[in-house]
């Protein structure tokens, strides 16, 4: 069984949350960085909504994953691309889904190898809970608690859709 989630509503909520955080912290010139692959699609959508003229960055965290010693290197690694200097910038780090928090830890480790940002705000479309590290999003489109056989699947970039899938039994 598959349920299509309402992408526009998710993005509305995420955008609203983000605007609130930016305003509260007095940040007027942030830069977006998406985590490949889904996070990049969400970053692109957010860039349009927030009216940011600067291009967004794309981060591939394969070289920073903490499961390299268990499963080896991800065979489909692509180069990270940050078309701006991150030194001293306010960064909005974007991913499609947050769960354990390990991806975000790896992404922050990678980000610091490019320079020292002024701040990092974390934005995720879906928060699935089940955290294994003390990392929380500053803004999320929706919080979902999945049943054991449920999973979410993001497709994109055009159109960007998200489904709640349930493997039948």
């Amino acid at each position: 069984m598959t349920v299509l989630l309402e992408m526009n509503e998710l993005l509305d909520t995420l955008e609203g949350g983000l605007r609130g955080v930016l305003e509260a912290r007095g940040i007027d010139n942030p830069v977006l960085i998406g985590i490949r692959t889904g996070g990049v699609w969400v970053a692109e959508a957010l860039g349009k909504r927030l009216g940011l003229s600067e291009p967004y960055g794309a981060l591939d965290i394969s070289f920073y994953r903490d499961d390299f010693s268990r499963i080896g290197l991800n065979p489909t690694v692509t180069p990270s691309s940050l078309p701006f200097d991150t030194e001293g910038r306010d960064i909005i780090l974007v991913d499609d889904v947050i769960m354990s928090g390990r991806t975000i830890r790896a992404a922050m480790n990678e980000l610091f190898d490019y320079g020292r940002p002024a701040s990092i705000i974390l934005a995720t479309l879906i928060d699935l809970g089940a955290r294994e590290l003390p990392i929380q999003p500053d803004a999320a489109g929706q919080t979902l608690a999945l049943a054991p056989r449920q999973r979410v699947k993001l497709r994109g970039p055009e159109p960007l859709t998200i489904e709640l899938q349930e493997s039948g039994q």
Partner: protein
Amino acid sequence: MTANDPSPTHLQLTRDGQLRHFLTLDGLERPLLTDILDTADSFIEVGERSIKKVPLLRGRTVVNLFFESSTRTRSTFELAAKRLSADVLNLDISTSATSKGETLSDTLLNLEAMASDMFVVRHSQSGAPHFIAESVTPGVAIINAGDGRHAHPTQAMLDMLTIRQRKGRFEGLKVAIVGDVLHSRVARSQIRALNELGAEEVRVIAPGTLLPLDVEDLGCTVEYDMARGMKDLDVVIMLRLQKERMEGALLPSEREFYRLYGLSQEKLSLARPDCIVMHPGPINRGVEIESAVADGPQSVILNQVTNGIAIRMAVMSMAMGGQMAERQQKLAGQQEGRA
């Protein structure tokens, strides 16, 4: 492929097809070679960052085991390992234990006792890295940094990366390898890689005395006349004249060789106008190649060196990853057996 398959393919790959040693390009197929090139592309981007290091091999020990001297290859392997955050030990064996009478096996046992995770091996005997890979403790990865006249797979792959950067593809390319093919481990690996990746034609251009017997069986055409051989070329790869390996009179003189097979501006003008010029180094100016060509706009010789670091980072991290994944699977299997 069975568990007892003695082929290099079985030795180099885990059961699910991940790299675990890198000894030769023989038996490695296009998807894996493409994975290596793609991974290297990502490491090129790492080399452009403010901090040029990734944590993949943090806490691992890489031993550069060079039984034959080398500057470029050893230093790019060292830099590659350091950028992967590994600890690196450089051993110049020709001036060390073996000269005190220790056997290769004993040297290796001692190094393994220091908890090494990877050996990068260069040896004058063809097959030495293969021998080491067969006898080494499971979990330790072996990378061939050049063995005898047999293979130099990381050099061939950095050449492929350079070609793909400049040409964007392999299909339809005409590539010539010029000079001392007989003594060249690089040429063998290059011919294999170019054929597997789909180059249209691989041509060797050399005097008969500097070609191995049945060279066509490697998958190339042969041309003895350089002017004819340069026609329609997209890529020309010059080889170093390996004077130190030559026994007997294979050449009349260096000047004669340069006149016939050296790459001058004039000969280069016979190739396609966008033909790139490559050389594995070290170059002998005025012997294989004219200075103006080596330093000219069509030369990508220094790009090859930069790409060498990225390719070696790719191969080292993939082989180490394969070894670690295999170890995890074995552990899981043992736990299941106990349960």
